């Protein structure tokens, strides 16, 4: 068994860098094109960082590495993210 949680576990880390709650935002997977809220991603937490994968195709959408004095964030697997005003 490899455990994963849903995208809501990203809320804490992402609240450090975004002013809005990004987990509620919709985003498009750069792999399969699926459009869904970040909260629906599959997040692997038993890893050297948080790894969010697309629920449709498993592609890595986002990663968060806690480097102590820095947060290293990748959104490279997302083609776009919708941030409501």
């Amino acid at each position: 068994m490899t455990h994963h949680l849903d995208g809501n576990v990203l809320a804490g880390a992402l609240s450090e860098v975004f002013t809005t709650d990004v987990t509620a935002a919709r985003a498009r997977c750069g792999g399969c094109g699926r459009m869904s809220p970040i909260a629906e991603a599959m997040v692997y937490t038993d890893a050297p960082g948080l790894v969010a994968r697309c629920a449709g195709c498993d592609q890595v959408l986002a990663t968060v590495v806690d480097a102590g004095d820095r947060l290293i964030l990748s959104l490279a697997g997302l083609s776009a993210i919708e941030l409501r005003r």
Partner: protein
Amino acid sequence: MSFATRGFSGRRRAPDDRLPPGQTLVQDWPVLSAGPTPHVDTADWEFTIRDETGDDHRWTWDELLALGAEDVTLDIHCVTHWSKLDMPWRGVSLDKLFENVESEHEFVMAHSYGGYTTNLPLEDLLDGKAWIATEAEGEPLDPEHGGPARLLVPHLYFWKSAKWIRGLTMMPSNDPGFWEQYGYHIYGDPWKEERYW
């Protein structure tokens, strides 16, 4: 046959001296995973070394084992701050796999079933420093721990010891693998605490 990669002098250092900075000793073996666990049958398993000539060097499971596995006892250090000491492993030395590989390239990208990658200098895989491991603690490696076979490079942080290994590709430059792209150190020496960028 059994030997330790640390303490070649023959003198065992006290456990504290064998823990790199920032590490804590564990007795269990935590499972870390950045994605779904691939389940690969040894009948379908294949290992490939790809060099710049385009001629792949391939081994089936039986061909790998026919090269001769050895028992080694060594310490592993995970970047998430745990270390395990005196861990028994069994695997095939990468010296055997590279015996007939001619390459001008000095770097290697390790590729895994499931898509994981990690980069290493070739010299860190040779001279008895690295194995394709098939057993740990006297048992075949289960899929959670990277079975049927994982890379084993104990002198670097354990994310370099790619689970579910399927091949190595020679590279002219030290391109970053999965964690190396996302914030972890390009080399990863635990004794220098090379954790992040």
